[in-house]
């Protein structure tokens, strides 16, 4: 073979090699992208503490419960941009009471209803305090507790990690019995009567 032919083969081989390297780099990046660990927020709502009474007056009572949240993704950081609770009891279900919900971090309690964004790695759990207030302007709060049925409460967490931001939702039920027990434990309510 002539020198020119050898040179042409050599050039082709180099071009193929460089092309292969570039393809390998892109494949590597794609694989890293696909295999990247994702942040997953888990709320251990089933392990929540029993309801406790926070405060009470004639027309209003506040209960709270505590539970943990964690980042169950591996080797990843999750940033909680926002977290909040909502009551799922519409007036069509019971119109003599109004419910409001407040969610706080146990380590950063605040009274303005604002949830400051925070980051956490996989492993340590974050304790949350979920407070809901039942208000009944037209009648005694104890009467309301007697009449009210179970209350469905929701928890929403908006978080972001390496992947797209997402919102997750969890539910739990505050039963009438549990509310009565919390009042009972606080010593303000026994057998449907005010102490």
């Amino acid at each position, binding site marked *: 073979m002539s020198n020119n032919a050898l040179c042409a083969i050599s050039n082709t081989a180099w071009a193929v090699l460089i092309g292969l390297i570039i393809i390998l780099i892109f494949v590597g*990046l*794609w694989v*890293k*992208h696909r295999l*990247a660990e994702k942040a997953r927020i888990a709320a251990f709502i089933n392990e929540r503490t029993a309801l406790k009474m926070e405060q009470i007056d004639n027309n209003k009572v506040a209960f709270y419960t505590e539970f943990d949240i964690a980042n169950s993704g591996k080797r*990843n*950081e999750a*940033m909680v*941009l*926002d977290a909040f609770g909502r009551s799922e009891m519409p007036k069509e279900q019971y119109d003599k009471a109004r419910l409001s919900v407040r969610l706080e971090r146990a380590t950063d309690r605040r009274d303005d209803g*604002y949830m*400051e*964004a*925070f*980051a956490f*790695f996989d492993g340590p759990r974050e304790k949350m305090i979920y407070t809901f207030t039942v208000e009944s302007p037209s009648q005694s709060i104890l009467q309301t507790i007697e009449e009210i049925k179970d209350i469905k409460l929701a928890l929403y967490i908006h978080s*972001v*990690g*390496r*992947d*797209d*931001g997402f919102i997750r939702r969890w539910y739990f039920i505050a039963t009438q019995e549990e509310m009565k027990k919390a009042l009972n434990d606080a010593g303000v309510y026994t057998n449907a009567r005010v102490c």
Partner: protein
Amino acid sequence: MRAYVKRQEQTAKGTININLECEIVPVKTRILTHRDNIADAIKEYCGDSITDKDVVAVAESVVAITQGRFYDIADIKPTLPAKVLCLFFPLKGSLSTRYAMQKLMDEEGTFRVCSAFIIGTIGKLFGQRGLFYKLAGNQSRLIDDFSGTMPPYDKYIVFGPNKTKEVVNSIRDKVGAFGAVIADVNDLKKADILEASKGVVKAEISQILIDNPFGNASEKTPITIIKNYALYMQDLANQRAAETVRLENENRREKARLADEAAEAEKAKRIEAYRQAEEKKLSDSAEK
């Protein structure tokens, strides 16, 4: 609050010790928003407490917020390059989410950021760290990811400020200060001065602010007044001059001491030579 500046400086004549202090006044404000003008806000909160010898330092994130340079997650659509590149940045860094990376690409250009990443990676293989941040533009160093700024901007990606020269000049002119600076200070003893008005020495301000008088986010002290900066600089010049004189005197004394020692050594050498010559003479005469 007082800032203590203690350091050693190398000069042609030797090492001089600088030991100075100055008063710094952190100013508490409400949360400043994009509806505020930073110069007006400083005027509002500092009033007449600023003199023409003072320097006003303002936190860079607050300047950026007053310029509206913050972005909501809902308004950012990450592209594939952003999704891939963010995976190579440390989790605790500000570019570890695809949203922050996308905003950086929007601001500095996708090609520039990708090129900086490739060159930075190659540089790292050869032991050259930090190339990416040098090549990918200022915002790569200044960007704050979610939860990096005080509420309510903790839910946004916040850039560094722009038109910084105009900002420091407007602050200086508005409040009648000696000068103004924009600073990026943290609790890790790192104080970067992004911009300084004419006559203000960035390195000195950096030393004065090293203990982070801005505090953490919840302290709401985005403005710090460095009192009597002009006098501080005068003191610094005086101290440098005094230290230089001290060094010169020390050097002169040292030279004199060395000269004395050399003369003593020479004298001893001469005496020894004389003694040896005398001994030789005596031994010669004894032989005779």
